[in-house]
């Protein structure tokens, strides 16, 4: 059967679909407002006519490519194309402005590649075991993981404690607006029908990141291109050596990414935030974080691509999607009458293994394309900003609208663009707000589920959490993480 799978995956047609998926993925990832979810949803109907293996190879290649693609616009334009790339922008953009865009892009694609391969290999080897382990994560455990994500805010906030907390508080507040996910009642909607559906992450983050950055460029008149310095050359070999030297960081971040990817309802964005915080805590160049630290690119980029493989673990073995993108890939399986679960491996083993092997090939294709395209991508920096600004704004508006086909979201994106500009003027960091918005509703839902279950069982929430071994372990890790992040933040504050 192995020979059969290999011949499927390496057949010219499968390679073409794989390449198409990866290239489209990189493009979708790089466009502000578009992401892997949109890309996979868009391509899904096309795959109905393909053989299951080809269709899945294309979609999962797109997922892999999009997870990396977000870093391109994050580095070059300081407009992270996806939530996954928000952390990458923090260091990638300063590097690009120092003329080191090629370096940043090379590290991004190489660590994405490493993380991607790591996640897929773990998935190939340990899916049955890991999926059973993932099931042990119930509401209390997921709540604590969310708190862990929020704990890294200390690493994101830059110079001022209060501004960092203000930003994350705004994000958390935004996550409350709309329909309460537990009781389905409305909160803070002010009788406004548009607010009843709540704020979608895409228009808000497109506004805060991309539109605000473009408005900022408009305000800083005088510059014709994004960087005044010349792009410094960066040989590929140097990138490979530099990446290899960071093997410890790569492995640690990839493990974080894979684990977060496996947990249901999470995804690459949370993985990259947590690994970024962890990298800052332990990195030798911790003081350079936020100013152009290579470690600050390597950690989130390897983590978010590792989460891709991770998210397939519960999908294939149990039919539980680990992320929004893999939820759509679930649809691609069922349309062919394949039901994810233990029987998938016995009845459709050829398709499952073709998907797994195909993902390995996708990752390699992604690295090759990324490295080859790096010189081309970095030319964007020399393009006249008068061309860049309208293009980015147009894509941002388009992306914001397409999230829910709702004109209200265009307004949301524009308003948050202005708010983002204010953030920049007052030097309030933006990433914590996005982190707060991503984690706020997740943390709340899981806490309330845990409270409900605890109450039904006649227990209080504290003993409920403490009596579950996994939550206890996470709680200890969480306290260590908070302590570590607090120390880091305090240290960098003292150094200022």
């Amino acid at each position: 059967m192995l020979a059969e799978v290999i011949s499927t995956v390496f057949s010219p047609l499968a390679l073409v679909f794989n390449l198409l998926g990866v290239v489209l993925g990189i493009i979708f990832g790089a466009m502000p407002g578009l992401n892997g979810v949109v890309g996979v949803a868009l391509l899904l109907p096309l795959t109905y006519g393909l053989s299951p293996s080809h269709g899945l190879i294309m979609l999962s290649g797109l997922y892999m490519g999009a997870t990396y693609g977000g870093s391109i616009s994050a580095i070059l334009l300081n407009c992270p194309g996806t939530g996954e790339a928000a952390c990458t922008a923090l260091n990638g953009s300063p590097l690009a402005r120092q003329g080191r865009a090629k370096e940043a892009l090379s590290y991004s694609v190489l660590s994405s590649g490493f993380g991607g391969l790591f996640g897929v290999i773990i998935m190939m080897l340990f899916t049955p075991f890991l999926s059973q382990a993932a099931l042990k994560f119930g509401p209390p455990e997921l709540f604590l993981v969310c708190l862990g994500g929020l704990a890294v805010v200390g690493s994101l906030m830059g110079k001022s404690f209060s501004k960092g907390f203000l930003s994350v508080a705004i994000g958390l507040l935004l996550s409350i607006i709309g329909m309460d996910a537990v009781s389905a009642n409305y909160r803070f909607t002010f009788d406004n029908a548009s607010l009843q559906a709540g704020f979608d992450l895409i228009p808000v983050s497109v506004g805060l990141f991309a539109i605000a950055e473009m408005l900022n460029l408009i305000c800083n008149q005088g510059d014709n291109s994004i960087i005044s310095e010349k792009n410094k050359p960066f040989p590929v070999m140097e990138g490979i050596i530099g990446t290899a030297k960071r093997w410890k960081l790569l492995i640690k971040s990839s493990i974080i990414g894979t684990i977060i990817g496996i947990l249901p309802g999470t995804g690459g964005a949370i993985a990259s935030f947590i690994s970024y915080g962890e990298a800052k805590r332990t990195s030798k160049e911790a003081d350079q974080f936020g100013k152009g630290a290579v470690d600050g690119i390597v950690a989130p980029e390897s983590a978010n691509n590792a989460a891709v493989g991770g998210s397939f673990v519960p999908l294939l073995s149990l039919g539980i999607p680990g992320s929004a993108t893999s939820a759509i890939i679930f649809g691609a399986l069922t349309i062919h009458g394949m039901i994810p679960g233990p029987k998938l491996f016995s009845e459709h083993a050829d398709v499952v293994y073709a998907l797994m092997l195909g993902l390995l090939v996708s990752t390699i294709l992604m690295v090759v394309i990324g490295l080859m395209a790096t010189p081309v991508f970095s030319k964007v920096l020399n393009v006249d900003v008068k061309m860049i600004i309208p293009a980015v704004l147009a894509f941002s508006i388009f992306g914001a609208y397409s999230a829910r086909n709702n004109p209200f979201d265009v307004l949301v994106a524009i308003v948050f663009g202005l708010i983002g500009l204010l953030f920049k003027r007052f030097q309030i960091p933006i990433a914590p707000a996005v982190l707060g918005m991503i984690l706020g509703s997740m943390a709340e839902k899981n806490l309330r589920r845990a409270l409900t279950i605890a109450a039904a069982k006649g227990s209080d929430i504290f003993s409920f959490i403490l009596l579950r071994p996994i939550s206890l372990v996470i709680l200890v890790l969480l306290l260590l993480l908070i302590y570590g992040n607090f120390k880091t933040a305090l240290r960098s504050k003292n150094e200022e």
Partner: protein
Amino acid sequence: MKKRSLFAAILAGTLLLGGCANKTTNDGSGNGSGSGGSAYPEKSVQFIIPYAAGGGTDTLARLLASSMEQSWGQSFLIANKPGGLSQVGLTELAGADADGYTIGALSNLDHILVLFTGENVSYDYDSFDYLGAINTTANVLMVSKDSGFTDLQEMIDYAKEHPGELTVAVSGKTHVAEVSLFEQAAGIQLTTVMQDGGGDSLNAIMGGHVDCAVLDKNYVAQVEGQGINTLATFAGEPISTIPDIPTMKSLGYDVATETYRVIVAPAGTPKEIEDAITEKIKEVSSTQEFQDSMANMGEIYRFLDQDQVKERLDQDYEMIQQLLEENPDALNR
């Protein structure tokens, strides 16, 4: 193979961002079936789906829209307008011109529940004309491995002795209503734990974080051989794809809910256009190819015309009204 490629040709056309537009051109076929002399449709029709892409209503509506498009030779532009249990999309549909060029799809119980429990709902039951339905599906009650229940009676007996102790994973108000109806029928009290969707509920029940879960019938095959018992279906009649699962009714508990997707138009749309749409739905959905596609998706085909679907909806409406009369907080938990 031929079936698959045809299906692909249909669906390839739905490819445009977020399903916001759909521009498959018809190459010459179509228009073979005149619709009572009416010139409808003369231009593209907007088809509002009040749910996100990928859900049950969306998948079915896309299949229907592409078949109607092929047959009529005019585009059916899918617009997903999710939010508020379909309230966001239906608000827009209710306010659209009643000329037949904006239609939509809805899910029966969600729609009725919004009418009873939604806030600032700008439309009512009579704001729409209900044109037809093509499927029926049902939810089932599953119990976790650790719970040890093998039939519904065991579970009910336990719940009677331990009021409120059993937890039930639900996703959406329809499930909440079903649990309330079941509680009423069995004289028990359960604790609902709201999840984001079926995948979440599945995780909760397989991980043993909850004792029971309400899930779509298609999950029955997915949990096979993993210690999860499916005790009963909420449907009034046995479901053909899960013949071994008893209905609650057959076990002596008077619960009968089903989920079906209804094609709707704003009230006041010209009668001949509405009839033409209903006729076309019947025509395209009765082909073998369409039904094979539905079967692939795990959907059960059942066509209801305008009168039949209204009658069903009226029954559902009364059922919810009665539930709320007996217990005004039944849906607020």
